[in-house]
């Protein structure tokens, strides 16, 4: 039998493929959102179910979990610890990353290439490989069970995150630097008056990354703060609650804490989002 070539409308094809694509996207986002929604609902649940949630919507709605969170537990201390650490790390790390990236992007020195490669390769090893070593070093320095020790650990490798930021600086035309230098600016002025205002999106990105990483970090802090509940960060503290012994009575509290923990990040994103998208390089040079 002869094969009949079916007439295909381009428009129809496009529509069909759109439908398929959106269907997949919707499924993915549902899968992705379910835990958050469940968490939010469970934080208002009065059922003492522990792990074994049997129903999506609880029988009893209550604020008890939140009340217990702030009255019975050390959550506020942990929250404070995490906040202080994250803010300090955010500031220090942003400064270091910007400085490193600017240097790698704009200056030409002998070890530039080898250094960049070295950092890239080092960055490929997971950080916890060195955890034991770091622990003992910090112990010698008397910095275990100490927030400063934690900040040190988080900021020590900041410069390795130069890559994305340098990539952005590279897109800012060099002739802007040169024009400014001829106009009478020195390197610092060029950086602060020309490059930084243009690099807003990438600064925002750096700030967000620098804040969220320590905010949710568990591994290093659990190791470092072991045995001193007053120095716990939220991640370490909350992990205790979902251990086998405590989970039955603390699961609701855990969910409430998770919601509270997510607030600053949501706020930060909402506040910084508009800079995040906005590109400001337009019109600098022939575009």
């Amino acid at each position, binding site marked *: 039998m002869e094969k009949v070539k079916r007439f295909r409308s381009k428009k129809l094809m496009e529509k069909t493929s759109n439908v398929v694509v959106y269907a997949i996207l919707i499924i993915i986002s549902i899968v992705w959102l379910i835990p958050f929604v469940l968490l939010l609902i469970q934080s208002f649940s009065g059922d003492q179910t522990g792990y074994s949630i049997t129903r999506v919507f609880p029988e009893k709605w209550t604020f008890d979990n939140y009340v217990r969170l702030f009255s019975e537990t050390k959550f506020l201390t942990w929250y404070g610890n995490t906040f202080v650490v994250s803010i300090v790390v955010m500031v220090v790390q942003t400064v270091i990353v910007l400085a490193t990236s600017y240097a790698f992007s704009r200056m030409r020195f002998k070890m530039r290439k080898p250094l960049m490669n070295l950092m890239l390769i080092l960055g490929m090893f997971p950080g916890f490989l060195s955890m034991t070593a770091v622990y003992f070093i910090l112990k010698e320095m008397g910095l275990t069970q100490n927030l400063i020790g934690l900040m040190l650990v988080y900021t020590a490798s900041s410069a390795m995150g130069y890559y994305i930021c340098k990539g952005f600086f590279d897109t800012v035309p060099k002739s802007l630097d040169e024009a400014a*230098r*001829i106009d*009478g600016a020195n390197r610092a002025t060029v950086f602060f008056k020309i490059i930084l205002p243009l690099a807003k999106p990438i600064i925002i990105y750096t700030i967000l990354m620098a804040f969220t990483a320590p905010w949710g970090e568990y591994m290093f802090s659990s190791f470092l703060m072991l045995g001193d509940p007053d120095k716990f960060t939220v991640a370490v503290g909350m992990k205790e609650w979902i251990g086998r012994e405590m989970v039955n009575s603390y699961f609701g509290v855990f969910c409430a804490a998770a919601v509270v923990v997510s607030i600053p990040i949501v706020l930060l994103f909402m506040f910084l989002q508009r800079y995040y998208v906005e590109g400001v390089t337009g*019109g*600098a*040079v022939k575009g």
Partner: protein
Amino acid sequence: MANLSLKHIYKVYPNGTKAVNDFNMDIADKEFIVFVGPSGCGKSTTLRMIAGLEDISAGELTIGDVVVNDMEPKDRDIAMVFQNYALYPHMTVYENMTFGLKMRKIQDVKKDKNGDPVLDENGEPVTYMRHYTREEMHERVLAAADTLGITEYLGRKPKEMSGGQRQRVSLGRAIVREPKVMLLDEPLSNLDAKLRTQMRAEIAKLHARLNTTFIYVTHDQIEAMTMGTRIVVMKEGFVQQIDTPKNLYNYPGNKFVAGFIGTPQMNFFEGTLKKVGDNVEINFAYSDAKVVVPFAYFYKTRPSYLNGNVPVYIGLRAEDISIDEETVRASNAVVKVRVSHKEELGNETLLYGDINMEGDGYVESSTRVIIKCNEDVDYSDGDVIDAALDLEHIHLFDKETEVTIIPRVPEYNYLDCEIADGKLRFLGEELELPSAIECEDGEGELLIPTDAFILGDEGIEAKAIGVEVIADTRLLCFEIGGRRLFAIVGEEQIGDTVKVKLDMKKISVLRDGSPIVDPMPKFVRFDGKLEKVKTKGDVEIVKTKKDGSQYTVTKHKTIINFVLDIEGAKYVAPDNIALKLITTLGVSKAFEKELLFESTPYDLNLAEQGISAQLVRVADYGSERFGVYACAGKEVYVDLKEGQDAPVNAFIAPTVEKLGIIQKDMDIRII
């Protein structure tokens, strides 16, 4: 508002590439200089070195009599316009223009409350540095904006403007500071053709108005020709020619310049020249074409080019070839051209053809010809037509070196001569050879440099034909025995006849192409190095106490002396020379690199110490005597003072301050 001078400027990259080679130029105040050349010729690099954005590898750059090699761009008082505008995108036009003013301070006289200047104890007004006031800045920005017609855009951001407007802002940002020198790096390359023409005129107008030195880089020869007062043509890091647009067009120094300047490109043919009686026959290669030119065109040409064997390039511009019937009829230089195709440009037509009847006329070859015709031409492909060559505008270049063989200022006069009995005979004249010149008797070719004639009250009498002024050079044309000769002369008045003498130490004689009489070398080069010598010694340091009284402290310290090792002889390097060597070569390399020390015979002395040398002979040129020594494997001429003896075993000492210094392996002139 300043003059610039570039002396032996080099740009060498760490991998050894030389981007700019021995750039020498003096730029007068208010000139409009254009650097032009194909991409990668070093024109932008040179500009960026002037701006201070690139380090100068070697050489000396002065702006307004100040050496600026090690100055930051901001201290050079220059402004630059970039190809991609380089406007600060986050600032408005107004902020863009004031940025440079905000960064800068000006000197002002201190005033008291009444507005009178404050005087110091000597009665001089006290000055201090201050920032521009808001009003001053505003005034300047408005003035600049007005000049460029951008007043209405002052509140806009760069991205809200078109390319032409942005480039205007960029110009405004440059002129608002009233810099000494304006540097423009291909400012119009990003604009469309119409806007480019318009901006070209505006920049020219701006130059006339601002009275500032402009240096403009472009790869577009039309921009160069229309704007520049002088043009620097560059290729592969070397300066090809520096001249006015008109001279570049009329007297290209080599084939590259001839081909680069002018559209369509100049037609180049290959051929040979043969002198026949009072005429010269030009035979085109790969074609039957042949034209005859009067010998008068070739007075400045070396006669050996005219023997019919030396291949040359023949250059003729498209506008110097005519197919107009009357012109062809009147012309005595007609060649047959086989038409291949044409390009109609509206007001004129470019006719492509070939002087070789088998040639195809599409590919650039040594027989392809482009003819510019004004009228409508209706030749079809394959027609063979007559074309008249305008031989007044013919250009001829050596095939090997591609240098013109009809130079404006010839280097040498070439004559036949005979040497016999210690006498030099040429053009019916006879001159006594000084004892310094020894050679076998016989005939030869005499090369007299154009600067070897000395005008005076005695010597050979010659008929003066005229004086031609070429840039800074006055070239005298005179006649001896019916032969025209050229000499570079000073400012003196020239009558109908002149008396000339020959500077015998500059002439050379060739026999069968190899020299039998050499001119005295202008300089000699010695091998050497810079060395560091550490000694311990007591140093007296003068210190000032708080109350202003001074006292000296003696300290035992290591003193580092810099020493020039010239062929084994050591000389203390003056601070400025040592510093220059070290800054140019780098601290670690300065003591490793081999150097060449260059000295003229006049700066060499016979001394008690120095480079050991053995006397070969004494060269006596009559008015001057030189001791010729074998020294470090070379023949070295040393100037002998009046009545000074030349010892057989001697030591030669150079005058250290006057040495030229060259880095040997890279051939970079440092001093």
